């Protein structure tokens, strides 16, 4: 029970699903489609990496979609209306979003409140703030945007690995390393496993909580910048409901929503599975997009039921002594 089995199952589902899709539409098995899959889901992969840390630590962050929306509007206005150089705008928004996450983490820890409702307030706050900035879509025409969207590594077979896909892959790899090989990562697992025990063993619970939510919001900010590259615009209604897709990707990736177990790689595979479903529906052409939601729901159920079974199996030998909950 090292958290490996669910990831392996996610990988098998992805490979099988891809094989089935490729059998029906041979064109799916091309670097073009795979490249587009990575580009289209770049922002989701980035924000899901942050969500993985939050969920493994036993929390949840509902504010990420709103933070993405706020970021796109802020960046667009800063560059187009206020005449701020793009890089300065990026740094400013990243500082702002990291501070926002840190504040949420601090409220959760200091006042001992459920993360669900605190980040819900954060979701309202960030979305409301982005409406205040602008309710209209603001197009971005700065030269850096066309440079970034034109940049791509050529893949064999005509595919393009775009800049935002590269950013996403780098963040996923960085996140996986951070979670697996650092003290920070070990503390995240410890928090999710048992908060009280972690505290007694010397983990600075408060500082960790603040940092974890800071990381999640920071990555949501980066995802927002990537999203603005993807659409070349800032819009206060962008990325509505992304928090759900993100949580679904994390769960499908084998992370336990009760915390303590999971991996960034699994989450990445979860994002790819969602992207694959979307791609399949696009290829089919007759299926409507609502099948994405139903398929995601079915997958969610399958994976949660599977986790439930695994946890039950793991507890069985020590069922008598495992009575102390929370």
């Amino acid at each position, binding site marked *: 029970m090292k958290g490996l089995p669910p990831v392996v199952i996610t990988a098998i589902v992805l490979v099988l699903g891809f094989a089935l899709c490729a059998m029906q539409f041979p064109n799916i098995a091309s670097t073009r489609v795979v490249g587009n899959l990575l580009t289209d889901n770049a922002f989701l992969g980035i924000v899901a990496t942050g969500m993985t840390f939050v969920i493994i630590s036993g929390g949840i962050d509902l504010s990420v979609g709103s933070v993405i929306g706020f970021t796109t509007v802020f960046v667009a206005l800063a560059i187009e209306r206020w005449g701020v150089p793009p890089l300065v705008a990026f740094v400013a928004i990243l500082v702002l979003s990291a501070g926002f996450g840190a504040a949420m983490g601090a409220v959760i820890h200091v006042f001992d409140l459920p993360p669900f409702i605190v980040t*819900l307030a954060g979701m309202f706050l960030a979305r409301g703030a982005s409406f205040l900035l602008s309710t209209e879509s603001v197009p971005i025409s700065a030269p850096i945007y066309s440079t970034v969207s034109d940049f791509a590594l050529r893949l064999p077979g005509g595919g393009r690995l775009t800049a935002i896909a590269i950013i996403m892959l780098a963040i996923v790899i960085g996140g996986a390393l951070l979670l697996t090989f650092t003290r920070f990562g070990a503390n995240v697992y410890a928090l999710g496993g048992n908060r009280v025990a972690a505290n007694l063993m010397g983990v600075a619970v408060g500082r960790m909580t603040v940092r974890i939510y800071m990381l999640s919001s920071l990555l949501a900010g980066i995802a927002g910048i990537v999203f603005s590259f993807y659409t070349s615009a800032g819009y206060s209604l962008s990325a509505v409901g992304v928090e759900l897709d993100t949580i679904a990707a994390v769960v499908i990736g084998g992370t336990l929503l009760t915390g303590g177990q999971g991996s960034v790689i699994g989450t990445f595979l979860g994002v790819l599975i969602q992207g694959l479903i979307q791609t399949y529906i696009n290829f089919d052409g007759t299926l*409507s997009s609502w099948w994405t939601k139903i398929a995601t*729901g079915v997958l969610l159920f399958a994976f949660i039921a599977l986790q439930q079974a695994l946890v039950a199996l793991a507890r069985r030998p020590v069922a008598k002594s495992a009575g102390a909950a929370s």
Partner: protein
Amino acid sequence: MTALLPRRGLAQILALIVILAVDRVVSPQFFDLRLQDGRLFGSLIDVLNRGTPVALLSLGMVLVIATRGIDLSVGAVMAISGAIAASLADSHGLPVVLAAALGAGLVCGLWNGFLVSVLGMQPIVATLILMVAGRGIAQLITEGRIVTFSSPDLVWLGNGSILGVPVPVAIALGMLILTGAVVRGSALGLLIEATGGNARASELAGVGTRAMILAVYVWCGVCAALAGVIAAADIMGADANNAGLWLELDAILAVVIGGTSLFGGRFSLVLAVLGALIIQTMNTGILLSGYPPEFNLLVKAVVVLTVLLLQSPKLSGFSGIMPPLRRAKA
């Protein structure tokens, strides 16, 4: 615990009065009522009418939260029941339409309850499944279109009036009385609170906690379905994409404003409905004041944070002085 009893509800009533007063300042004709074609009109009636869906949702949600659960799927259930009602309205009578729509809510509630009580899933996860898939199912029913209808029976449910009172308001009031009678007229409410307070201890004390949990999710599904039918009847159509969108958050907010802790235990139906009215009074006030409706979200965020801080275990007591030690959970 005992010290909480006398001032239970006082804060909510005061909050509502303050918001009403602000609304009066913003819009001088706020309290005006007039009778036209046998139905009352005015901003206050508007608040009640528009607040109905969230009030109905909060009636089910408060019971779920009292058992230490949460139901994220109520918005999606609204979309499903609205879609069913709208598709059947022009070809079937009102009893069939209502039975089908509420039956769908019952099935959704059973599904959620089964996942939580029998399979032992975390409520937030279990109901997330239906929250994601439910809207897809609703779109399947409407085939992705916005289904409209003209059946006068169903339209009456959303726009008619009984003795001058809009039908949705009467329904919400009826549901409040019914739920209150069932839950508080028997030991059921106490058993639900026991389940939320400590499920394990209650189980050992002989409370059928599994049945309790299943029952509250079913009731929550039925309430959501009713809210969905009313929302559909109000606009004479069903929009699977937008019906009940994000209303689960409003319902949870209403329950939290109503003083019911997200950690389960004691609950109050009346205060939850009052919470829904507070939210709607704020919404209407912001609309009347001429500010863009987007301000709603900011105001809501501030309200949530304030209520949370007041409820925080670290800030117990009215004085707001931090106690040196956390209260023992006796």
